[in-house]
């Protein structure tokens, strides 16, 4: 459901500028530069915190079910070790390439820094088409990839997590492979594991919960109240679905939600638990009778107070930003707002809570999982949720202070905060060797 890619540009210059606008990493680089200027970062420090610390490229053989050996290419980029071990997902997809992995690793550095968890950023991936592989092939590929990057992994070095096309099971295989090589149980080497192998309670809901907390904190700064707030949620998965459910529980009027098939709308507010159980039963929103149906593009332009894009990147762009009517945008997805749209929203005074703050609930609970694994003791869901709440509120307030100090958007403020934290750790640690 990416309207972005469907709308092809007319002329080549247009196509180029559109490609730039829709490249979220270009967007991040723009924001990095702007934040660095505002911070007055000297050239050397700027270079140090921008360049990835280490990039590992591996080729490794896997025995396929048909008896042939196939060689796969895998990456692990560790962007920064300044604040702690690297942390970030591993993705399996046919179009994984180094540039993307590198950008996502940097993104993780800033995200971890904004919510103040003691990690640097990392990202990894294997070029493969998981839909065309058997479970056995996937397991063998995961284990061999783990063995190939084994030397740079570890609870104190680099802690992967699930990402596109990887899940709890993948993490269990990585944990097992690492443990067998290390000759000891090492649960803290990955997060996003199943509960029975050292996973954390509350992790699946963490990102959605973080989105809800961000909404609440943002409402406070705007002097709004949940019961008078009409919310539109794009996406009904782990982030959007859980987010909508929690917003509903907190008294918001959730007027619209969408999934891959389209969006539904009810001016008086949707019965979200009912909608979600409908999706669970039918695996789609299609045919839900208690609301009007409308296409994706129109959902974003609905009259509402709060818009939470929780689906995919590049949803709010220079093409539709003029029609966005929400006073508050809270980003559940990564990169749902393009840089160009961002500038317009800022001029207009729309408050945008940026992804690296508002969807950082996931990485925060990943951090909690690592902490729990290191002590071998597991918190109740209540404790996980309470601590997540504390972390998110603290991060929101930290960003808000920077926003006021520099008179910038929440997004630029987040980058300033994140980069300043990394830069000051760099100054404290100094150069080794």
């Amino acid at each position, binding site marked *: 459901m990416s309207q972005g890619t469907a709308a092809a540009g007319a002329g080549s210059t247009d196509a180029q500028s559109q490609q730039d606008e829709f490249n979220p990493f270009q967007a991040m680089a723009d924001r990095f530069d702007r934040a660095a200027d505002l911070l007055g970062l000297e050239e050397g420090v700027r270079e140090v915190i921008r360049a990835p610390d280490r990039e590992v490229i591996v080729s490794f053989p896997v025995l396929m079910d048909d008896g042939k050996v196939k060689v796969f290419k895998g990456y692990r980029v560790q962007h920064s070790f300044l604040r702690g071990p690297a942390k970030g997902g591993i993705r399996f997809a046919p179009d994984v390439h180094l540039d993307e992995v590198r950008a996502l690793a940097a993104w993780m550095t800033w995200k971890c820094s904004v919510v103040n968890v003691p990690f640097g950023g990392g990202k990894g991936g294997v070029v493969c088409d998981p839909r065309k592989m058997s479970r056995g092939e996937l*397991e063998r590929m995961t*284990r061999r990839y783990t063995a190939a990057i084994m030397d740079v992994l570890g609870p104190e070095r680099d802690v992967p997590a699930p990402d596109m096309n990887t899940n*709890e*099971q993948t993490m*269990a*295989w990585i*944990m*097992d*492979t690492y443990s*067998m090589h290390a*000759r*000891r*149980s*090492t*649960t803290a080497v990955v997060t996003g594991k*199943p509960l*029975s*192998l*050292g996973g954390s309670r509350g992790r699946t809901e963490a990102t959605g919960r973080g989105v809800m907390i961000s909404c609440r904190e943002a409402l406070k700064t705007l002097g709004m109240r949940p019961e008078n707030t009409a919310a539109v949620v794009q996406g009904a998965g782990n982030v959007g679905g859980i987010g909508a459910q929690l917003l509903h529980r907190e008294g918001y009027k959730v007027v619209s939600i969408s999934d891959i098939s389209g969006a539904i709308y009810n001016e008086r507010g949707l019965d979200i638990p009912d909608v979600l159980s409908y999706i669970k039963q039918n695996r789609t929103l299609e045919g839900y009778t208690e609301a009007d149906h409308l296409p994706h593009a129109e959902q974003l332009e609905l009259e509402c107070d709060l818009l939470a894009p929780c689906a995919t990147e590049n949803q709010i762009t220079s093409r539709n930003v003029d029609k966005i009517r929400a006073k508050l945008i809270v980003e559940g997805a990564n990169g749902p707002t393009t840089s160009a749209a961002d500038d317009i929203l800022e001029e207009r005074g729309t408050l945008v809570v940026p992804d690296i703050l508002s969807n950082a609930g996931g990485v925060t609970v990943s951090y909690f999982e690592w902490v729990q694994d*290191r*002590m*071998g*003791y*597991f918190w109740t869901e209540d404790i996980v949720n309470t601590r997540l709440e504390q972390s998110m509120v603290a991060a929101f307030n930290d960003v808000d202070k920077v926003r006021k100090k520099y008179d910038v958007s929440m997004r630029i403020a987040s980058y300033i905060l994140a980069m300043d934290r990394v830069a000051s750790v760099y100054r404290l640690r100094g150069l080794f060797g």
Partner: protein
Amino acid sequence: MPDSFRNPADQDLDGHLAATPVLDEETPFASVQSLFDEAAEKLGVAEDAYHVLRKPDREISCAVPVQLDNGRLGVFDGWRVQHNMGMGPFMGPMRLDPNLKLDDLRALAAWMTWKCAVLNIPFGGAAGGIKINTKRRSQTEVERAVRRYTANLLDVLGPDSDILAPDVASDENVMAWVMDTVSLHERHTAGAAVTGKPVALGGSAGMRDGTARGLRAILNLALERLRIGSLDHRPVVVIQGAGHVGGNLARLLHGAGFTVAGISDVNVALYDPEGLPIPEILEHRAKSGTLVDCKVECARMTNEELLAVECDVLVPCAIANAINSSNAVDVRAKLIVEGAHGPVSARADRILDERGLPVVPDILANAGGVVTNYFEWVQNRQGLNWVPDLVSRRRRRFMTEAWNAVLAFREQYDVRLRMAAHMLAVKRVSEADALRGIYA
């Protein structure tokens, strides 16, 4: 073979100490395996997984040469059996026992796997020890044996590999030697490699009466949830054993207003249906080491007779197979809670089940000790000692969650509590194994 070629360690075997009386013929290993088989079958565990779970992951035998005080070298036998690592590092007892047998250790290791799984503690089961008679050996000989045994096993021990705990004849001093040996070889303090250490070396608060407190929690839950006893009288409890499990339990229950009607040691049982003055009795035992000449006014009887008195709850906390096929029909309690390891024999278990008498099995009821061991390991990893109150509260939570899970299985599968506990354990371990897969 010339006499001078005899291994001085063999002296320990002369004149076997009285072994645990096994009135029913099954060996402990056979009992554990038959329980596992039944649980696996009822759960419908896949055949491949069944074979993996049934066999210990690793068994290590080692010779333990020790410089004896008389200048000779004695070579003792040592073992460590590691049963299943699906849930996490191995953890289990280290015992010093002249009658130590590999088969018993296999049973104990498997039993530890199931026990940890019932309590949802992230460990797999292990068991080991040295075939040595600590009563015939000097402390320095025992220390040298323990250190050498530890050194032999260094490759497989450690906080994330295999964690030792005290057991028969191995106390907190022995654990301190193990901890010191591991730490010196590893060149860093490895407190979490061993649990049951002295408090000064990172031992946990609440270790002494951990098992008894866990038992009390389970006993309370069982009375409430199985609706045993009536509201018009305080529950009447009979306890076999007055050591650190039975004695502490008696003290805790007496303090909580229960009527403790019976208590025993190896020599005699004291009985008063109106309730015994427990503090007085325990004080006497602490001074004299026995209940024999205790002046309290009450009936005296044998242990066998005590097991047959009428009461709400019978808690056997002394020896294995105390309730066996010859006396199971005589038990007049409404509920049995196992404080000792295997106090109800496999045959007696079937008899009691037919009689409809609920038995809360050892792997659930006496797991308070293992939970406290686990807490010690956590505290050592955190480098933070919990206050006694926190240990108690968290222990109670683990016991309650385990009880609830076992009870849910009992209802779902319509089986006795012992089977429900084993099924829960086998399910958890087989799921963890399946998630991890078989590597290389």
